[in-house]
């Protein structure tokens, strides 16, 4: 349960530490929790993740515990991927659709044991989960407030955690998870993240939060550890090519205007759809879309210049063919990247388009018509992200 009966705006289990570290006092509301947008300076935080270690409090992420003898079958009806392929102790990136085949949310599923899973996602989806559970022997518990989580990301993240005594953590494979003893309790570490770098997410009971934070920052002192806010994370995930629910697509349940939600194919996430399994939500509509073609294509754009093409219109010749949903100058890749949704006819690799970028300098708005090109994939994918054993920087 999320204790909104106690307070309008909630504090995460790491709040006292975040508050102390948040020098610029810039906060935002994340699904009812107050979380730092910036701690010190965006670029410093960004570079901490790319060069040493950044720590991000992801406790507000919605979490559901799904257990019972039909939990696997239930999840398979909920999501578009085939969960039967997920082994115990592994994590999977998934999404789920409504009956029209439009994406309701994406998230990660942790298979904790044979019939015990944790789903982490952006939206609060209990109603949909309960309706979907109809007929299955499954128990679904909201555990957002019961599980605290920190993302520890960056080249030195493995070394920091090792220094904390989590021996053997370097052997953890991407999308794997492992348990470690800490301060008389157990916590779970998964090799997952939203930065595209070597990194881990640490899941623990809320009462361990402050002790863990302190121990982590102690251990990380010599490894350049730094807390990061959501602004830096946004740059990191754009550079790594990760979509953000509510930004790059409107969760189908939250879309009010018709036609504003998107299918997995339209988000470039067709690889997450498996038709080779029992009935799942959206199956029929997605089969139809596969046969008839999609309306939109999700593309990565390499935009000329260094002005982030935020919210820009996208043109082909002088026809408007789409909009940009996320954009950032990516310092490591040294590329001006944008995510765009364009008319499916203009979504193939190498397609030249034009972004109409507006920006303001001292009360003067300027417009740039920047040429851009549809590129193959994310611009940042370092080898260390996948290497096992994890490199020791």
């Amino acid at each position, binding site marked *: 349960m999320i204790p909104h009966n106690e307070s309008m705006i909630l504090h995460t289990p790491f709040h006292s530490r975040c508050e102390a570290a948040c020098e610029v006092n810039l906060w935002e509301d994340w699904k009812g929790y107050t979380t730092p947008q910036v701690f010190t300076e965006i670029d410093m935080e960004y570079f901490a993740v790319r060069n040493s270690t950044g720590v991000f409090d992801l406790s507000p992420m919605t979490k559901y515990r799904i257990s019972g003898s039909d939990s696997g*079958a239930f999840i398979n009806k909920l999501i578009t991927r085939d969960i039967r392929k997920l082994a115990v102790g592994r994590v999977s990136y998934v999404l789920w659709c*409504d*009956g029209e085949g439009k994406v309701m949310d994406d998230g990660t599923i942790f298979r904790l044991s044979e019939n015990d899973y944790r789903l982490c996602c952006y939206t609060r989806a209990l109603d*949909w989960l309960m*309706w979907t559970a109809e007929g299955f022997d499954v128990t679904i518990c909201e555990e957002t407030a019961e599980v605290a989580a920190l993302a520890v990301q960056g080249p030195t993240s493995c070394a920091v955690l090792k220094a904390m005594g989590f021996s053997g953590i370097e052997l953890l494979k991407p999308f794997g998870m492992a348990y470690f003893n800490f301060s008389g309790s157990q916590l779970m570490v998964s090799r997952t993240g939203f930065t595209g770098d070597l990194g881990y997410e640490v899941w623990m009971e809320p009462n361990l939060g402050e002790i863990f934070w302190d121990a982590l920052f102690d251990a990380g002192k010599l490894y350049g550890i730094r807390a990061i806010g959501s602004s830096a994370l946004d740059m990191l995930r754009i550079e790594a090519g990760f979509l953000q629910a509510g930004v790059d697509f409107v969760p189908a349940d939250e879309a009010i205007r018709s036609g504003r939600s998107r299918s997995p194919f339209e988000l470039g996430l067709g690889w997450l759809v498996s038709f080779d399994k*029992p*009935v799942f939500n959206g199956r029929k509509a997605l089969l139809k879309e596969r046969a008839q073609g999609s309306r939109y294509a999700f593309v990565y754009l390499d935009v000329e210049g260094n002005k982030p093409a935020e919210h820009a219109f996208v043109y082909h010749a002088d026809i408007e063919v789409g909009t940009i949903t996320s954009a950032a100058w990516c310092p490591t890749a040294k590329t001006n990247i944008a995510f765009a949704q364009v008319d499916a006819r203009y979504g193939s690799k190498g397609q030249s388009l034009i972004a109409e970028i507006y920006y303001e300098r001292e009360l003067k708005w300027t417009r740039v018509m920047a040429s851009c090109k549809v590129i193959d994939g994310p611009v940042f994918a370092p080898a260390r992200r996948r290497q096992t054993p994890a490199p020791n920087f």
Partner: protein
Amino acid sequence: MTDLKSAYDVVVIGGGHNGLACAASLAKAGKKVIVLEALHSPGGACATTEFFEQFSVSSCAQWLYQLDESVISQMSLKQNGFELSARNIPTTILSETGNHLTIFGDRLAGAGISEKDKMAFKSFNKQMMKFCDVLSKAFKRRPPSLIERSFGDVLALLGLGMKIKMLGKSDMRDLMRLGLINIYDVMEENFDNDLLKAAISVDSVLGSHMGPRSPNTVFGYLYRHMGDIFGYGRPGVSLVRGGMGQLGQSMAKAVKALGVDIELNAVVDRISIDVDKVTGVILRDGRELKAGIVVSSSDPKTTFEKFVGPVNLETDTVRRVKNVRMKGDAAKLHIALDGLPKFRGLAESRTGDRLLIAPNMEYIERAFNPSKYGQFSKSPIMDISIPSIHDSGLAPDGKHVLSAIVQYAPYDLEGGWEAGKQPFQDLLIDCLSQYYPDIKQQTLSVELLTPLDIEQRHLMHGGHWHHGEISLDQVLMMRPFPGVSQYRTPIDGLYLSGAGTHPGGGVMGLAGLNTAKEILSQKKKLKRPNFYDST
């Protein structure tokens, strides 16, 4: 037991009138069809039961008033033993003082009815018939769909719109206005006589969880009187010789003559599905029947929740099925009588009428109130038939059966029907005795069927005779719910027919005919499997 080794194009679940009408149409088009009926006799809600030694009664539907004439001709029912024992039966609404009112079509007599009311009733009737005529066009085809309209659907919608437009300014305005409002207000606008207002109100709420003040009860009235446009024996209600079961029997005989196999006592356990395609039906005894097309004339909840199972349906459908409103609020009372009943102030010649107990609209509304809170009416309304007056075969010589639809009796009775049944039955007899003082002395046996009994006996979820409330949110393209409104379901090859689909309940047969039309219009060539699995 039927030789199930033969291969079928279509398996029809449920041998009620819609299932049989559908099977007949399909057989005529050359399909090999089997009908699976869970009970020991065909007919579904068209059933005759001997509830006491030598006393038989139509145990579910009691009047015939909406059966489409084309069903009778297409199935040659008259050659197969179907016959009416009485038709154009007048309705007499009983008054506590004995000053009753009788309705003969659009004529009124008794109860000191004024000339003004007589005239007003004629014009009310005329207008209602115009509206029914417009709506009836939509009943004989599949409903238009909300999205992805085919050209035919667009034409049908345009046709309906044109018909409404052609009613003329004043009638069109009235239809738009009356369609959504409640019958109580309309009655107050039109008439003075309490019995007349109540009689029309009864027709507006019978079989539903509504009182005269509930919205869209005017639609309920139009719906009921659709039979006056296309119903066999119209206008008014008729009785089937031998009880409604005889209609079921004659339909069964007719479909057999067309080459359809009927297997009785064949209880379906589930519909077998390969991801999203129907592959056949599995019976409770373990036998599996393969077919590329399965028609379920069972109600939507039984079909989707029991036979298909929510795990095989996408969540949207699960949610819509669950939200279909179909909790019965009507009970059925059967009494074996030692002699001809004598109602206070009622001429003997009128005893065979359709008799209503509902002296005024407030009475009906007050009868409805407790059912909203899970209690039965303290002063219930009744729609009474004494069929043995017209059909001597139903009771021994000189003796009679009384059959009554009783409202309101909520499916979810507070405290349960096991405890509530006897008190309700006693209350009903007491209520009858106010109009029929000798009832207790003449009663030989009483049977009360609560909605729970009707659910168990006639296998309809919630004991709702219409397989779902008839209200504007659950008719036409919304019946039983958007997405399944054209008899097709999310599972390829599985069709939903029966009262739960358009045009709805009442012994009409149109849902069955429309389903067959829909199946036959599918261009895909039917594949006939050539083997049969026994597991």
